[in-house]
């Protein structure tokens, strides 16, 4: 079912049209096989990069597309509606550029950002460690200063694009202070001493490589540190706010894809002499799927518009991530229900959607952590505010 959208410019509308064309022609024919064979579709990212889709929310003068988050997220959604792993990958790539774009010096930005946003390269970010996921400040991976370089030693868990990426945004400890002892580095993928473990064997999102990265005395020039020493955690956390919006958009896309498949099936499949959509009990299931998905989209775009207007959006980003990913879990589960026994087989994609939805409640901050963010904001008190669009 085509989605009703409202975008700010004609070029945004054309961009979404291009995204749908790429999704239809380049992603749709490949997704089922790549996910079944657990193959990372590196070529697909090159195609998207060539079309300019890997740098959309960044400034034009630094090689980006100069698009507001409101538009970028709808592009992500259209990609994820066809292939969640690729949607997640585009979001992660964007996040891996976020530290440089927001905390890097002008010189650092001019040196690396155009290449990182140019479409040929793919990024990853390393925050989590095996014992430090929800609590990243518990991290132990260390960077020790040595002349005009740092030497990084430790392990980073769960790295999306681990072993595939051309560069890694890495958060590591430069002192023992729990929150102000963490610094952020941009590490090239071919750095000596950097290696990836065999990929995790996951329940879903199998086309996306997730791997533990080992740092065994990796030497990184000091000018690859983003921001001051000790500023790494705030950089990582502000990146996560933006990243959460990305995952929210991906979850909206996934839910929309599941709804579309379920709807098409419900119009074809007959029981008791009529298409199953004519049974009210089943039709209401579809109505709830549509209501949840449109609500999740609206919340995600509301948070994006706050971000675009330069207003605080951290709480709304957490709510969007929470609502959109819980909705994706529910909608994909219900899509399996709509397809009945067929939905439970690997011959139809809805069981895969269901497996893909689960991880969205876990990464980029589990949904318990999102509730933590929201409830803390509530406890602190949230000022009422009416901002006026310029």
């Amino acid at each position, binding site marked *: 079912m085509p989605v009703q959208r409202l975008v700010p410019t*004609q*070029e945004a509308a*054309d*961009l979404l049209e*291009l995204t749908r*064309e*790429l999704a239809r022609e380049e992603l749709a024919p490949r997704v089922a096989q790549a996910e079944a064979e657990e193959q990372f579709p590196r070529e697909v990212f090159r*195609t998207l990069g*060539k*079309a*300019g*889709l890997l740098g*959309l929310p960044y400034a034009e003068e630094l090689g980006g*597309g100069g698009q507001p988050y409101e538009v970028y997220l709808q592009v992500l959604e259209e990609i994820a509606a066809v292939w969640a792993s690729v949607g997640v990958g585009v979001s992660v790539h964007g996040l891996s550029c976020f530290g440089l774009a927001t905390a890097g010096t002008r010189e650092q930005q001019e040196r690396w950002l155009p290449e990182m946003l140019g479409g040929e390269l793919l990024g990853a970010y390393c925050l989590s460690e095996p014992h430090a996921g929800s609590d990243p400040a518990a991290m132990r991976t260390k960077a020790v200063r040595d002349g005009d370089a740092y030497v990084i030693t430790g392990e980073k868990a769960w790295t999306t694009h681990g072993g595939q990426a051309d560069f890694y945004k890495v958060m590591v400890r430069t002192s023992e202070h729990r929150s102000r002892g963490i610094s952020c580095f941009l590490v090239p993928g071919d750095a000596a001493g950097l290696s990836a473990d065999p990929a995790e064997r996951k329940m879903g999102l199998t086309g996306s490589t997730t791997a533990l990265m080992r740092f065994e005395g990796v030497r990184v020039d000091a000018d690859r540190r983003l921001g001051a020493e000790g500023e790494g955690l705030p950089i990582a956390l502000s990146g996560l706010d933006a990243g959460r919006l990305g995952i929210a958009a991906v979850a909206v896309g996934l839910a929309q894809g599941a709804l579309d498949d379920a709807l098409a099936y419900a119009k074809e499949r007959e029981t008791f002499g009529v298409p199953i959509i004519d049974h009210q009990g089943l039709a209401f299931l579809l109505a709830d799927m549509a209501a949840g998905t449109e609500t999740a989209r609206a919340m995600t775009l509301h948070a994006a518009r706050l971000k675009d207007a330069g207003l605080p959006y951290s709480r709304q980003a957490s709510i969007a991530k929470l609502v959109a990913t819980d909705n994706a879990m529910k909608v994909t589960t219900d899509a399996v229900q709509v397809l009945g026994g067929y939905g439970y087989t690997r011959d139809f994609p809805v069981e895969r959607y269901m497996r893909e939805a689960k991880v969205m409640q876990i990464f980029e901050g589990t949904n318990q952590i999102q509730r933590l963010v929201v409830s803390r904001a509530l406890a602190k008190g949230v000022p009422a505010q009416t901002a006026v669009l310029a």
Partner: protein
Amino acid sequence: MNIVVLVKQVPDSGTERQLDSSDNTVARASADNVINEMDEYAIEEALTVKESQGGEVTVLTVGPDGATDAIRKALSMGADKAVHVSDEAIHGSCAVQTSAVIAAALSQLEYDLVICGAESTDGRVSVMPALLSERLGIPHLSGARKLTVDGSTLKVERQTDGGFWALEAQTPAIVSTWDTINEPRYPSFKGIMAAKKKPVETKSLADLGVDAGTVGLATATSQVLDFAGRPPKGEGVKVTDEGDGAEKLVGFLASQKLV
């Protein structure tokens, strides 16, 4: 080499298309309109020739105001500028009338090469390039699966069922392209942004010096008098395997010219 690509905006052939019951013309306003698929090959070929020979690619379309979508797509793929002929009086024109309008528009442009698709997915007359060739007095190299440009010499492999014909002509000429000729590029976001700044000139019939009375439904050489919906799909052919199933299947595919 200056190239003009003829581009038509048509209702998306992947959707249920309608005729307007008031005058039996194609319902365009209510349709999901896209660039004629075959014309993307023509654009790609024009861009490829430009990349090797230099020059400019101009997009020419005759169509209602909404046809700007097709123009923007062509410009975002890389064409340099566009001419859009739009005039209420053209509504309902047949292929012969349309060709007079396109020929008049072409006469106001400098071109060495005109490239168009082999057919449109709405009219499907497949005669536009031949009509233009006649009106402009330039050679027509039709159904190209390959085009080579060597100075002012054009060489075309014209696709046929069993192989190809080798055609050759001097510029200026018109080439119609088949969908085997290339793989059209996707626009890029950069291209979309650049397209915003490219010149699009809108022309009326008066600008072209075409008398409005000679075009339009009233004087069309062909008119749709009546139409009916497509009959429901009939029974398919059932092949029973009596040891010769494979042969029968191949025979069927061959009879449909699919293998």
